[in-house]
C-alpha cells in the first residue's frame, strides 16, 4: 500500500475582495500522477502557489502535510529543499544562457563561489538523457524549441532531486507529438524513478491518458476526486464535475451554410524566414475561403501556419514575400497592417499577452484600438461614443467584468481571449484569421468562443481557424487544410476529415521529406 506523500487540508486563501480558495482538500499518494482540473480562475494555480511557498505560510489558512510533516514554507527555496518543484505555464528560462546554465541557475555547482563548468555540463547531460533531450548542454535556450525548453525545465527539477513534480499546464504550447512525449515521460518517472507528479491541465484527453486520480476544483472549492481504478473516467464525466452540469455538445451546431462565392484567396504564397536567408517558412501555398465558411488549418507547431497568417496580414512577418491575395475575387496589394485592416482582414494572434492585448490598458481601450477611427472624428476621440461601443461589444461577447474601464490584466484567460476577439470583431472585418483562438481557455469559455465563431460565419464572414487541437478543427470547420514543413499537403472536406486521416498524412509527409 502506497503512502500519502502530500495532504492539503482546508486550504483557504483570500485576496482583497475575492476568496480564491475555499476549504480545499487534496491528498496525493506516493508514486501516482494526480491531475487537477478546473475552469480558468477555479483556483488551480493559486493552490499550487500555496503549496510551493510562493504564497508563504501564514498568508493562507489550513495545513499542508508533506510525508506527514506539517509544512510552513516561507518561499520557493523551502519547498524545493523538500523535493517539491513547480514548473509554471510560462517557462522561467533565460534565453541567452545555455541549457546547463539554466538547469543549475540558483543551484550552481560551485566551490567558494567559483563554478565548476565541467561538472555542471556533465551532470546536466545526465539529467537531459533521462528526459530524452538530445542536445548539447552548452546550447543556448533561445536556439531550441518550446517542446525542448519544457524538457529543460523538467531536467532542472530533476537536478534538484525532486520527489514531487508539479506541472502547471505543461502542454499548452506544445504540439501533439511533444505532448505525447511529455506525458510518456511522466509515466516513466512514475514507474522507474518513483517521482510523484501533479498535473494541472485543461486538456482532458491528456489527463485520461496518464492520470491515476483526478481532483476537480470549481470556484475555489475541491469538488471531488476520481480514481481511475474505482470510477469511470471519461471526458463528459470530468466536464460535468468542472462546470457543474452536463455538456453534451462540446461544439455548438452551426445553422448557416457557406455561400458559393469565394471571399478570400491566396495564390502561390511564399515567405522566407526574416533572419535565416534562403529558409522558406511558407512554400507555394494556395488556399481559398468562401463567405460564411470556417476553414481549418491543421499542422504541427512550426509547420508554417502562423507564418502564413501573419505574412498575409500586412506582411507582419517574413521577408521576400511573393504571391497573390484576392479579396472577393479582386487582387489586392497589402503592404502594411493598416492596409490589411482597411481591406477587411483581421488576425487574432495566438499569443494574446505578447502580441494581442495591452494588458495595462482598459477593456475599452483594447477593444477600440485597431479601428479607433470608428469612434473618432478628425483624429479626436469621442470618448462617450467609445464607451458605448465598447460596452455593446462587452455585452455581445459576454465579457465578464464590472465595466469596460476594468484593466485587462485583471481578467481571466478566457475573458482576455474574448476581449482579443472582440477587438477584431469591432474592426468589422470580412476575413478573420484566428490563430489558436481557444489556447489556454477553459471548457466553458471555449464553447462561448465557438459560438462567436459560428455567429461570424452566419454573418457571412470568412474564417480561417488555425489550431493544434484536431478535435476542435473537426468539430468546427467546413473544410480543413493541412500544412507540414512550410507546405500545404492536403485538404479535407468535413466528411472526409478525421483525426487519424489528418495525423496520418502529416506523418507520411514528414517521412517523405526524409526519404526524398
Amino acid at each position, binding site marked *: 500500500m502506497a503512502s500519502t506523500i502530500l495532504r492539503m487540508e482546508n486550504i483557504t486563501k483570500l485576496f482583497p475582495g475575492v476568496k480564491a480558495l475555499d476549504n480545499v482538500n487534496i491528498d496525493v499518494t506516493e508514486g501516482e500522477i494526480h491531475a487537477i482540473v478546473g475552469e480558468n480562475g477555479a483556483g488551480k494555480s493559486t493552490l499550487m502557489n500555496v503549496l510551493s511557498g510562493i504564497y508563504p505560510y501564514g498568508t493562507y489558512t489550513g495545513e499542508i502535510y508533506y510525508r506527514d510533516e506539517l509544512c510552513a514554507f516561507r518561499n520557493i527555496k523551502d519547498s524545493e529543499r523538500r523535493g517539491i518543484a513547480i514548473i509554471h505555464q510560462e517557462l522561467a528560462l533565460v534565453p541567452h544562457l545555455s541549457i546547463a546554465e539554466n538547469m543549475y541557475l540558483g543551484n550552481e555547482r560551485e566551490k567558494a563561489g567559483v563554478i565548476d563548468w565541467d561538472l555542471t555540463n556533465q551532470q546536466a547531460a545526465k539529467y537531459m538523457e533521462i528526459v530524452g533531450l538530445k542536445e548539447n548542454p552548452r546550447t543556448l535556450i533561445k536556439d531550441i524549441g518550446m517542446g525542448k525548453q519544457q524538457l529543460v525545465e523538467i531536467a532542472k527539477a530533476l537536478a534538484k532531486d525532486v520527489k514531487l513534480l508539479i506541472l502547471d499546464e505543461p502542454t499548452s504550447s506544445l504540439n501533439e507529438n511533444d505532448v505525447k512525449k511529455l506525458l510518456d515521460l511522466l509515466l516513466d518517472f512514475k514507474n522507474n524513478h518513483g517521482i510523484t507528479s501533479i498535473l494541472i491541465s485543461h486538456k482532458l484527453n491528456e489527463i485520461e491518458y496518464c492520470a491515476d486520480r483526478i481532483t476537480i476544483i470549481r470556484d475555489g472549492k475541491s469538488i471531488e476526486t476520481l480514481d481511475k481504478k474505482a470510477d469511470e473516467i471519461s471526458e463528459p464525466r470530468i466536464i460535468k464535475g468542472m462546470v457543474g452540469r452536463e455538456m453534451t455538445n462540446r461544439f455548438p451546431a452551426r445553422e448557416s451554410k457557406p455561400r458559393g462565392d469565394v471571399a478570400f484567396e491566396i495564390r502561390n504564397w511564399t515567405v522566407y524566414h526574416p533572419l535565416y536567408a534562403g529558409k522558406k517558412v511558407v512554400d507555394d501555398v494556395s488556399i481559398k475561403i468562401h463567405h460564411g465558411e470556417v476553414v481549418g488549418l491543421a499542422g504541427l507547431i512550426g509547420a508554417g501556419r502562423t507564418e502564413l497568417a501573419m505574412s498575409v496580414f500586412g506582411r507582419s512577418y517574413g521577408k521576400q514575400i511573393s504571391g497573390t491575395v484576392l479579396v472577393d475575387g479582386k487582387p489586392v496589394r497589402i503592404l*502594411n497592417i*493598416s492596409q490589411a485592416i482597411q481591406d477587411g482582414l483581421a488576425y487574432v494572434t495566438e499569443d494574446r499577452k505578447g502580441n494581442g492585448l495591452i494588458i495595462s490598458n482598459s477593456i475599452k481601450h483594447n477593444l477600440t484600438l485597431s479601428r479607433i477611427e470608428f469612434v473618432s472624428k478628425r*483624429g479626436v476621440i469621442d470618448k462617450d461614443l467609445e464607451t458605448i461601443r465598447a460596452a455593446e461589444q462587452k455585452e455581445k461577447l459576454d465579457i465578464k467584468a464590472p465595466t469596460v474601464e476594468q484593466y485587462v490584466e485583471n481578467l481571466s484567460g478566457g475573458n482576455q481571449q474574448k476581449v482579443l476577439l472582440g477587438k477584431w470583431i469591432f474592426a468589422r472585418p470580412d476575413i478573420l484569421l484566428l490563430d489558436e483562438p481557444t489556447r489556454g481557455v477553459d471548457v466553458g469559455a471555449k464553447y462561448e468562443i465557438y459560438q462567436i465563431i459560428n455567429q461570424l460565419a452566419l454573418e457571412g464572414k470568412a474564417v480561417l481557424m488555425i489550431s493544434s487541437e484536431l478535435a476542435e478543427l473537426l468539430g468546427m470547420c467546413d473544410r480543413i487544410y493541412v500544412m507540414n514543413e512550410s507546405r500545404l499537403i492536403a485538404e479535407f472536406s468535413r466528411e472526409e476529415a478525421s483525426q487519424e486521416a489528418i495525423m496520418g498524412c502529416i506523418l507520411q509527409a514528414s517521412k517523405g521529406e526524409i526519404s526524398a
Partner: protein
Amino acid sequence: MNKVIATVRKNMKQYTMMLALAFIVLMFQGLTGGKLLLPMNVYNIINQNAYIVIMAIGMLLCILGSGSIDLSVGSVVGLVGACAGILIMKWKWDPYLSILLCMGVGILVGAWQGFWIAFVKIPAFIVTLSGMLVFRGATLILLQGGKAIPVFPAEYKQFFVGTTPEFIGVWEVAGMKIYLTCLLLGILIAAVFCLTQVISNQSKKRKGYEYATPGALTVRMVIISAIVIWFFTLLARYRGIPSVLLVLGVIAAVYTFITTKTVLGRHIYAMGGNPKAARLSGVNTERLMFFNYVNMGFLAGIAGLVFAARLDSATPMAGDGFELDAIGACYIGGASAYGGVGTVSGSVIGALIMGVLNNGMNIIGMDVNVQKLVKGLVLLAAVAFDVVSQGHVTLPSFLRFGKGKPEKITAR
C-alpha cells in the same frame, strides 16, 4: 460618512502628486518664513522652471511611447540658444524669423535622432547619448570655442521673459498694485473650468454614465477655482502675467488634449503598453516613435529659446544637466519607466515639485551640495512611493510593519 471616505480614497491616487506638491509648498512656506509665496518669488519660480516644464512634456511623450528617454535635450537647449545668438546678434536677422528658424533647428535635431531610433532601431539611450555630445560640441564650435554672445533685443525677449502688457490698468488698493488683466484672466480661467465641469457632468448624467453628485462637484469647483484665483492674485500683485506662463499654458493645454483626446495620443499609450500588440493593431509604431523624438526636439528647441532669453545671452554650457531635471520631473509625476503610463499634468506637477524644492532650498540658504543630495533622494522617494502604493511589489518582511504579513498581493 463611509461613502465620503471611499470617494476620497478612490480619488486619492489621482491627487497624490498634487498633495505632495502642496505639502512641499507649505513646508517651505514655513521654513522660509513666508518668503516662498511672496508674489515676486512666485513670479521667479515660474521663470526659473518654465523651460524644464516644457522639456518634461516632450520627455513624457518619449517615456510614454517606449519607456525610453532623451539624454540630449540639455545640449539641444545650448545649441538652439547658440543659433538664436548668432542669427539675431551676429547676423542681425529679424528676431521673429530667427525664432521660427530656431524652432526648425530643434525639429531637425529631433528628426536626426528620431531617424536612428525609429527606423534604424538603435536604442534611444545610445542615440541620445551620442546626441548629447554631438550637439554640445556643435554649440561650442558655433560659439567659437565657447565665447558667449550677450544681450538679446527686446522683441525677442518679450515672448519668453518679462511680463505681458497691461491692457486694462493697475488698481491701487491699500498700498498694493493689482494688475487687472492678470486678475481677470484668473477669474476667466476659473469660470471656464467651472462651466466645462458642469456641462460635462450634465452630459454624463444625460447619457446615463457615472456622474459626480452636486455636492462633490461643488467642492471640486470651489477648491480648484480658489486655487486658480489665488494664484493669479499673487501674480497680479507683482507685475502681472509672466509671458512665459502663456507659452507654457498653451503648450500644456495642447499636449493634454493630444494625450487624452486624440487618436495620436491613444496610439502613443498603446505603443508604450505593448509595442507588438500596437503594431499588429495597425499602429505605425515606427512613424510614431519618429514623431515622439521630432516633437522632443521641437520642445527642447523652445526651451532653448526661453532659456537663452532668461540668461540674456547665448552661452556654451547653457542647458547642461537639464535632461536629468526633465526626466526626473516625469518620473516624479507618475510616469512609468517601462512606458505606457503617465500624464502631462503629472509631469508638470513633477517639474514644479523639483522647481519649488530648488527655490525653497536656495532661499533658506542650503549648501548647494546638500541640495543635490536632497533632490536625488526626493526623486527616489517619489518613485518608490508610487511603486509600493500601486502594490506591484511586496516589501521584504523585515521592512513591513505588523506580523510579517504582506498587506497586498496582486499576483494572481
